[in-house]
């Protein structure tokens, strides 16, 4: 360290100049190369049926916990956000900590699959996957962890299969009281939004529309995100993560039309889940009937599922062993990126490990 007065300022100026040069060099690399596709850990496809894909990830340690973990992705995005980059993969982290990981992900639904409803996911795809996991692992029970809409599907499954093989239930940023959904409530107001006409015309809920709606929740953040990227072009780790997450967001999937119709009408507009009036396949969905250990992980700065929407879920669950953990971060940075590595992942492992033996 220099003793000369003002040397610190000179050092900082030098750093700023070096970063400016690096920005120019790496900026060309950025513009001239494609983004990384994501998905880095070795996995095997166990089952595939239309939009449903069930994967098992290869173990990374010789001794694992007894209970396998099935992670359920949201229907709106690919699952590689769980396995983003080497060193920034939740799947890799859990594998190294000795968990046996299965992932249920969804691909772009075909036109025939536009008829899919919650019944198909909750009473068919998830139970089928759990059976496949049990057969593959040789274990009778399984833990479920769902992200966002995947959390909602896992929640519905747990409420409707209280005598099933579920050992633990983990939800990440899962909405519950949709009357607090802010702008979403206003945009989907039946006075102005005709869900039936919309679905009957478009068939599938277009991904561009979902991305635009999310952008409208923070209208200038895309601009400031680009400025922030330029500012950090010298930082390879930042750029790598940002590109991977941007690509993941751009890979948003369309939703089956009937699923969107059912979600919009019954869950968002009528708030039937929170009001205890939701029925799936003619059976009431009562989250109070869930008695397995339950963890809800929410993000302090989540603008897609704000805390107000998720807050009352843990209180509604019937389990005695239940917990809500609020962590710094947003909807995506809760599960992926440098912050998640330090914050959420160790907490998830610490909660899950003693309940998986």
């Amino acid at each position, binding site marked *: 360290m220099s003793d000369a007065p003002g040397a610190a300022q000179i050092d900082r100026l030098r750093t700023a100049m070096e970063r400016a040069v690096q920005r120019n060099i790496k900026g060309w690399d950025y513009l001239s190369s494609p983004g990384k596709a994501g998905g880095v850990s070795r996995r095997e496809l166990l089952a595939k049926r*239309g939009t449903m894909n069930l994967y098992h990830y290869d173990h990374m340690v010789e001794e694992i916990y007894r209970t396998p973990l099935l992670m359920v992705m949201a229907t709106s995005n690919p699952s590689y956000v769980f396995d983003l980059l080497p060193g920034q993969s939740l799947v890799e982290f859990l594998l190294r900590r000795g968990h046996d990981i299965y992932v249920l992900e969804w691909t772009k639904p075909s*036109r025939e699959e536009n008829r899919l409803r919650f019944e198909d996911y909750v009473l068919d795809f998830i139970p089928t996957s759990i059976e496949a996991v049990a057969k593959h692992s040789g274990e009778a029970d399984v833990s479920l962890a769902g992200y966002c809409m995947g959390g909602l599907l896992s929640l519905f499954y747990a409420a409707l299969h209280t005598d099933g093989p579920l050992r633990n239930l983990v939800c990440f940023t899962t909405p519950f009281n949709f009357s607090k959904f802010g702008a979403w409530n206003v945009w989907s107001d039946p006075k102005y939004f005709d869900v039936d006409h919309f679905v009957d015309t478009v068939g599938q809920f277009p991904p561009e529309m979902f991305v635009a709606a999310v952008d409208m929740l923070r209208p200038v953040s895309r601009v*400031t995100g680009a400025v922030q990227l330029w500012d950090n072009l010298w930082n390879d780790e930042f750029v790598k993560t940002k590109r991977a997450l941007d690509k993941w967001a751009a890979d948003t999937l369309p939703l089956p039309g009937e699923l969107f119709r059912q979600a919009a009408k019954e869950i968002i507009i009528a708030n039937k889940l929170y009001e205890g009036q939701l029925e799936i396949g003619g059976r009431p969905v009562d989250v109070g009937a869930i008695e397995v250990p339950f963890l809800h992980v929410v993000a302090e700065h989540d603008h897609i599922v704000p805390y107000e929407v998720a807050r009352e879920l843990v209180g509604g669950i019937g389990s005695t062993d239940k917990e809500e953990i609020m962590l710094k971060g947003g909807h995506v940075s809760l599960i992926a990126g440098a912050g998640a590595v330090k914050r959420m992942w160790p907490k998830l492992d610490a909660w899950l490990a*003693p309940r998986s033996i």
Partner: protein
Amino acid sequence: MADAAGDPFGMWRTLMQQWETQANAALTEITGKEEFSREMNRLMAVSLRLQGAFNEAVEKALTTFNMPSKDDVARLSDRLGVIETKLDALLAARGTAPPGPPPARAKRTRVPPGEARGR
């Protein structure tokens, strides 16, 4: 957050963050209003009507020229997808294994660090 005192870009970053927060708050106040929802949905309804009319016109034109429409190609793609899935299922039922030895099965006896074994 950047150290604004010593970093030549620090003040600029702080200002940018403040502007982002304020601009997002101001704009979401507008987009969260009923008037915005009414106009946005009205525009979408017009767009859907136009889209429907356009799709119908293109469909008619393609039929006239005896050419497959996007729907026809998508239906064909769906059917191919179903055939692929059935082939995968048939191969799986025959017990076709990937080349190389099967991965070794891990022991399911792990306990969390610090917990006694055999409890």
